[in-house]
């Protein structure tokens, strides 16, 4: 933690960055919250412990934060993967952000560029590789799985916390907000909820970097990350592609190669 604060102070004092997006004390001893440190003398607000789980990369694409100037971001492995994925999607350029990487065991990492982040995240397993909940869902019959999701989606109040907390939901206009034509129902009824969650999961298929922010944010506890985790597995098995591991990848679901192994598309 002292290392992190010292580094943040140094970056701010030297003017290398204008803001450090990090974690600070939250409402109570169980919670941490995002803090935006803009002066070196405020760097002591930064904390880093087990409470600090929100994916802070979500703030990097927000206009209010962009307006502050160059940021540094405190990044655990999921946030590091986010930065790579944002770079792959041309939302971040090399040098746009200083990464204050925190290893899985809480140490400050020296990650000067995307290459260094790539090397580090390659060593960190994804949750979807071993999540027992996925195995439980896969073992269900399709009827059981349908019943499971119908029940889960019946709790959805369409607050869009899943969307707002997701660092890869950065579209300036979401499909659910397009009403001419209305592609998907905006109302929080059964069909509207189903359409929303299917659309969200599909748009994140192979883009989700598996931080779990969506399910952590959901006020009614819907395990939304299971949808994107399952799709991450599918994209891995069909296209041998995993999101968030490279700053320079062509997205499997929106790129075409003349030598594609499938022939229906030619």
């Amino acid at each position, binding site marked *: 933690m002292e290392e992190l604060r010292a580094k943040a102070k140094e970056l701010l004092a030297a003017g290398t960055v204008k803001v450090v997006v990090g974690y600070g004390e939250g409402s109570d001893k169980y919670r941490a919250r995002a803090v935006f440190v803009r002066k070196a003398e405020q760097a002591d607000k930064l904390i880093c412990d087990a409470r600090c789980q929100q994916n802070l990369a979500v703030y990097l694409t927000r206009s209010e934060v962009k307006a502050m100037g160059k940021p540094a971001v405190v990044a655990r492995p999921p946030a590091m993967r986010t930065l790579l994925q944002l770079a792959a999607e041309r939302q971040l350029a090399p040098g746009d952000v200083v990464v204050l990487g925190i290893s899985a065991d809480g140490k400050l990492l020296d990650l000067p560029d995307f290459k260094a982040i790539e090397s580090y995240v390659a060593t960190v397993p994804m949750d979807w590789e071993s999540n027992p909940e996925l195995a439980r869902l896969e073992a269900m019959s399709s009827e059981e799985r349908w019943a499971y999701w119908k029940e889960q989606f019946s709790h959805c109040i369409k607050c869009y*916390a899943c969307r707002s907390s997701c660092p890869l939901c950065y579209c300036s206009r979401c499909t659910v907000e397009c009403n001419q034509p*209305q592609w998907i129902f905006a109302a929080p*009824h059964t069909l509207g909820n189903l359409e929303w969650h299917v659309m969200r999961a599909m748009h994140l298929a192979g883009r989700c970097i598996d931080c779990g922010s969506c399910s952590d944010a959901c006020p*009614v506890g819907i395990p939304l990350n299971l949808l994107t985790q399952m799709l991450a597995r599918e994209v891995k098995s069909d296209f041998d592609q995993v999101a968030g591991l490279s700053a320079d990848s062509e997205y499997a679901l929106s790129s075409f190669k003349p030598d594609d192994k499938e022939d229906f598309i030619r």
Partner: protein
Amino acid sequence: MMETRILKKQALGTLLERIRGGGFRVLAPSKNDGHVVFKEVATLADVDCEAIQTTLSPKAAVFPRCEELVNYTFTAKNVRIEDHEFQATPTVLFGVRPCDARSLAILNSVFAWDVKDVFFQKRLEATTVIGMSCTKADDYCFCTSVGGSPGDTSGSDLSLTLLGCGDYLAEIVTEKGRRIVSLAEDLFGPAGKVNKEELLPKIPAKFDVKELTGKLPDMFTRNEIWAEQAMRCIGCSTCAFVCPCCACFDIQDEASRQGGTRLRCWDSCGHGQFTLHASGHNPRHSQGDRWRQRIMHKFSYFPDRLGYIACVGCGRCSRSCPADMNLLEHLESLVEAK
């Protein structure tokens, strides 16, 4: 003077049976995948009044998250519009915290402001509130700062307070409450002397709401305060949707060439699209602008126009916020701001 009785501990289950037998649907706090929410219960075993608060407020009983208003059909050049006819189900909201109970009058002040909203009114008339005084509170609770208290009976028809012995003090607040008691007269014994205050958690008032309300109009242009507070807000509508007092809604038409349905759905000022004009201009351009609206609406415009603070201090918004926006903390800092 309000009539008080004693309801024996063992009689609570029977009371629920009698209420259901009286033709009411009973909605009560109940466990749902680790969350406690108001849902229909069949027996006392389904009820969980242990939690300080349910995740969602009981407002959906009178203001559903999505409801039909009208149906319409197109034939040649004619449009046929049919009001959505419905009968509100007689409902008892059981185990409602005093803060939530107070919120119904606040919602009603919106839905009966000029035109009486028939959908809301029918549901409200069909609803009886059996309140349950708080036995504990946490650091997010601030009812006493906004005019409530952990033993407040004002929003309940019948109010129950757990006594040390496990029995309940029953305060009959309204005629609706009396009707519930009349379904089970034999279960309600005479009340002796009870010091109710002793049974309630102590929740000291954290700020002077009159001072806040008086101060806010001059704070509208203090953009730096609003922007700073809202910096970590991610712009979802969790706070508005878990709030028992938030009444904003969106109208959605779901239609084909043959006809359609007009729906009313919960909406939230936290969303950028909430005030987006057709021209593309957005008068609430930043999250700070939207956060200011949330505070101003609840603590300035609402009391100014409708005579109520649109917050009962339940603390749900802060407990549920994925970004740890803490309403109480922000209100205190607004009161203290120079």
